[in-house]
Structure formats: C-alpha cells, structure tokens
C-alpha cells in the first residue's frame, strides 16, 4: 500500500510486529514502519472487534493504538521505533493489568 522512495533509505532497524520481523528506518514512527511493511491493521476495536489501522498519522484519531513492549494504548503514529521493540496488535480493550506495567 506504500513504498519508500529510494532517496529515503537508511540504516535498517529491526523490530517485531506480532512476532513477525519488520524493518524500519531511522526516525520512523511505528505507524510509518508498519505501513511501509504493508501492514494496514494494528488493532481490533473494543466495541465490535472490527479491524482498524493508522488513519490520521498526527496523534488525533487514536486508531493506531498498539501494545509496545507490553504496554498497551500506545499511539503508533507518535512513537518512534527503536531496535528490538516488540509491537503487538491491540485486540479489543486494553487489559487493565498489563496496561499499567512499565
């Protein structure tokens, strides 16, 4: 759905999404890296369980909420990828216990 222009490539940063290995570039937000990897869906809604993905990319719509390194409700479009980051689909409501874990 998106491709990266050749003049914007850089050193590869490896992270995982639902256990699958994904490559980001320096400065990428999690949302950008997922879109560049062809991943459109990053959560399922708490109300009906339907899939959603990044929508506004500017921190306003909260559609790109994911779990990052065990902490839920993180905005993928506002969080910069770091090497080894563990990103997971947020499935329905965030679990309250792991939600507060550091």
């Amino acid at each position, binding site marked *: 759905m*998106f491709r990266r222009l050749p*003049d914007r490539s850089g050193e590869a940063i490896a992270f995982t999404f639902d256990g699958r290995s994904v490559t980001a570039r320096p400065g990428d937000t999690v949302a950008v890296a997922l879109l560049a990897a062809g991943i459109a*869906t990053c959560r399922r809604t708490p109300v009906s369980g339907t899939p959603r*993905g990044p929508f506004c990319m*500017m921190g306003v719509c*909260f*559609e790109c909420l994911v779990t990052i390194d065990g902490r839920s409700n993180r905005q993928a479009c506002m969080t910069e990828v770091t090497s080894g980051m563990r990103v997971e689909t947020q499935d329905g409501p965030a679990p309250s216990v792991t939600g507060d874990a550091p």
Partner: protein
Amino acid sequence: MTPRRIMSADEFADGYDLVVVGAGPAGMEAARTAASHGLDVLVADENRAPGGQIYRGITTARAADLARLGRDYAAGAEIAEAFARSSATYAAGATVWSIAPSEPETSTGTGLDIGISLAGAATFVNARHVIVASGAIERPFPVPGWTLPGVMTAGAAQIALKTAGLVPGEPTIIAGTGPLLYLLAAQLLRAGATITAVLDTTPRGNWRAALPHALDFLRSAYARKGVGLMAKVARGTRVFRGVTDLAIQGSGRVEAVTMRRGNEETRIAADLVLLHQGVAPNLNLLLAMGCAYAWDEGRAAFQPTIDEWFGSSLADVSIVGDAAGIVGAEASALQGAIAGHAVACRLGKLASDARDREVAPLRQRLAGAERGRAFIDRLFRPADRFRRPRGETLVCRCEEVTAARVREACALGVIGPNQLKAFLRCGMGPCQGRFCGLTVSELIAEERGLPVCDVGYFRPRIPVKPIALAELAALEQSDSAVAAVVGFVETPSTIHETEETL
C-alpha cells in the same frame, strides 16, 4: 544560539512569562517574536521536531524532499531556523493536557497552570500568558467504509511522505474536496507515485457562492498556484468531477470505492483510499479551558472568538494560526508574530506605540496572505450529504455509533451534543470527539430544525489527551484537592490525633 531543549518533565522551570502550545508556523513565530522582547518563553509541542503538520519534517528534509514537496513547504525552513536561533525553551514530544487558572495553594505564580506530559511523566508549569497554536485537524468525512484499514486522511499520506518518504502503491484513490486534495496529488505525482483516480466531491453549485469573491482570489497567490496544481493533477491521473456519492467497500480492509455522479455509478478497485474534505480548527484544549466560540456557516465549522490582537475571551489566553480559523501557513506565521508583539506589550516588555509600529507592516502582509481565502472557503465547502450522513454510516469511530442512532436519539429528545454522550457515548472515546464533533452538532441541528450555533459543540474536559493514571497520581496535590477526595489532610498534628484516637 539554539533554543534550550527540554527532554524530561523535571527540566521544566516552575514558571514562564509565556507558554506557547504548538510549534507550527504560528507557534514558532509567536515564540520567536515574544522571546525577542526578552520574555521567558516555553514552547510545548507534541511532535519530535518543530514545523507543525504543514512543515512536518522540515528540520531534517533533504534536497529531494524539498524538490517534491514544493516551494511553499521549503519556506518553512526559514521560520524553523529563526525559531532555533531564538532564546525560547522548546519541549518536543510534550503533550499539554490541561490549562486552568492558577491554584493559589500549589502554584508559584498567578496566571495559568499548564499540565504537561513529557517522556512518561507529568508536571505543572505556571505561565503569565498562554498562546495556543494548536493548528487544524482534518474535518470528519463520514462515508460508508471510512473506518476500514487502508482508508486514511490525505493529511496522513502527506505526513508519511514528509517524514519518511513513503508514497502510495497501486491502486490508490484520492477522494474529496479542498486545496490539500490537489496539493497532495501533485506532490505524490512529483514523487513518482501512480494515482489511480482523483474523485472530486466539490459541489457544482458552490461556484455561485464563491463568485462574488473571485476578483480577490484572482489577485492572490492562491490562483496562480491552484491553477498550476490542478493542471498537473489533470495531466498525471484521471480526475472525476461532480462526484455526488461515495462508499468504500472491503472485508477487513479496503478493496474498492463506489462513486456516483448523477445517475452513473462506478466501482474502482483500491488498496489505499485517501479522504479529505478540508480542515477545521483543533479546539479541544481551547474549549476545555472555556474559551468562547461561534459557528461559522460559510466554513461549516466552529471557531474561537478572538479580538484584533488574537486574544481569546479569556484574558491570559491568545489563539493564533489555524486554531483561530483556517488561514493557511503564511497567514498563521504572521498572526503568530503579531500576537508575540501584543503579549510582550501586555506583559510590560514593549510600549504600545512600539508595538503598533512593529505590527503595522505585519498586518499589511497578513491582509495579502488572507486574500483569496473567502473564495476558497466557499468553493470547497463540503456538500451537506458528506457532512450529515444517514443510516449505518459510522459517525463516532471510537464508540462505533451510526448516523441512524444519533438521529434516533434526537427523536427521543436529545437536545445537544453533551446529552448525546449520556445516550450513546458518542464523543467519549479516546479521540474525545475530534473525529465526530462537527458531524454530531450538524446532525442534531438538522434533526431538531435549529441553526448549528444553537446546538453548539461538545464541552471537552481535561485531560484533553489521554494520560496514564500513574502520571496523574504522581503529581503534587493541593491540600484542598486532597481534602475534597480523602475528607481530611494529613498534617503532623492530624496524624498525632489519629494515633490517639486509635
């Protein structure tokens, strides 16, 4: 000299003369100008680098980025460099979630207390004055299927292009109305992307309302740029004008778009759909503070009430740039500078005659930058049917509330957006009404047969962005706040008394 950059919440000073919220063109210019008069200025911005959305990524843009994004984008570099040379303190990645009059018990000053989160910790800073430059957000575009993965705003695609050099693959459809639609299409084409089609939903009848403003428009820079952009897009992709209906289909993600033009229905396969029907002021913080606002029928949007110095209805709060009413980047920067001088004068750093001398040429340039805007507003006013959906189209994306349910609730006696929250939770999800507020107000107005100004908008509450409870709990509490919750305040004497009672 570069602005002092704050990396964690404990680096904030207790108080500043001026806190500017937002580091787009308006915020950067407001901060730079105010700092030039010797004010102690803090700029708090959610992004990781200055520029706002319009100049997003400007401080790290390379020659190739500047070439494809165009001259207007490149102009942001100068503003960002001037800001970087100013003495303002800059907090990147900072979220302002509350602004309220100072609490005498905990605050170090009078004026306003500002709740800010940065790098996982929250704090309050005090300010004698606040300038809100919170910019614009995309207007909701509630059509069937607009929540499917693979549907994004045009602004989102532009951010991906500016910050990471991402361009859409095939097949991609851009749909809606407004200058940004054609700007994005032109930028993507210039970057070598293939766009399957542009579906233009601009109502044909809008020409009639726009015509009286055509002369001003033709004398403006918008005219030259606009014609060039539209010609470029027409050469580079198929443009379908006069689109009267739009629906997005897919199972689990986007697969196709169906459009109607008059009686003719067309289905086009799509992997990515970029929607846009204009932007509106980003008001949540301002409304949570209690700033007065009004409905602008010509722009079909709410905007805050401001005076000639960009002061809001609250004495210590100014509003500049698109947050005060959509004006674009160039006018936003000029408004920021004018407000910067005005606040310096208000806080005793600049005599009023000196302020007037500084501001006169800026006002002249502002008039030039605003020329042609009335024509654009009227020409690209989105059609009623794309603002006031029916049936099973989702209005509130977060709580998944359909247009039909909002309309039914009105029939049950809902009188306004705030009561609708209690009925349907509409506007109570994490986006806090940002992507349904305008739709909700207009639907209630239509169902009740009232003007939208009489219905009003949601009353947003602090925190205006979600923050972790742990951050709130770690904040220092005033005695009265503790007493309100616990019933008493622990002091050495009350602890002693408690022990004796036990």
